[in-house]
């Protein structure tokens, strides 16, 4: 029996972008306020779960053609390279640096290498969570 889920699908199309922007905000605000890579990744994956609830697994796979295992591997690689990059400058493993840069749109911004490590955490959390949910939910 086919059902018509108009209200939930329209709401999802709106709410997904709010959740997406909130996840990005929590990720970037993690240095000075509560948040960070872990919570941001969980919020992002809960947004994708909302898409899966309103549509189905195949439609979401067509919308976001992402291999989540690859995302996990890329996140781990980013974290490892951020940690290992400090070796080339004759400082101990995991030493972080920061500096101020003049970015085109944002003006003077402080960029810390811990942010790249956090990017790795974000990608790993999104990849692992979506892998688990797809593996459990996609079973017939």
């Amino acid at each position, binding site marked *: 029996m*086919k*059902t018509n889920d108009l209200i*939930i699908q329209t709401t999802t199309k709106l*709410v997904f972008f709010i*959740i997406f922007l*909130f996840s990005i905000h*929590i990720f970037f*605000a993690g240095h000075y*306020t*509560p*948040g960070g890579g872990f*919570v941001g990744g969980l*919020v992002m994956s*809960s*947004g994708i*779960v*909302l898409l*899966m*609830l*309103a*549509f*189905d*697994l*195949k*439609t979401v796979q067509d919308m976001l053609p992402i291999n989540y295992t690859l995302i996990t591997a890329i996140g781990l690689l980013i974290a490892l390279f951020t940690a290992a990059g400090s070796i080339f400058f004759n400082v101990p493993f995991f030493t972080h640096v920061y500096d101020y840069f003049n970015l085109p749109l944002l003006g003077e911004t402080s960029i810390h290498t811990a942010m790249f490590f956090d990017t790795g955490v974000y990608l790993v959390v999104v990849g692992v969570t979506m892998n688990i*949910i797809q593996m459990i*939910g*996609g079973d*017939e």
Partner: protein
Amino acid sequence: MITFLWVIVVLISLSILAFVYRLVKGPSTPDRVIALDAIGVGLITLIGLISILFDTVFFLEVILLLAVLSFIGTVAFSKFTEKGEIIQRDRNS
């Protein structure tokens, strides 16, 4: 003003207790799902009041996070009660 806020905290805690009563007692599953959703809203209000009382802005992101999670949980529960499965493989087949 502070006394007034504490009175509201007590009132909302009592209403959450009433929702917990409906959650335990509720005869059907939709009753329990709606009770859980209302408990989520009560917690959101409580966190807002607590962040006023503790004079901090660091709890405000928790409010939005709890609203998102409560919404997704309610949608998942209602889809489970309606269709029997939460994530379908292919809806159009």
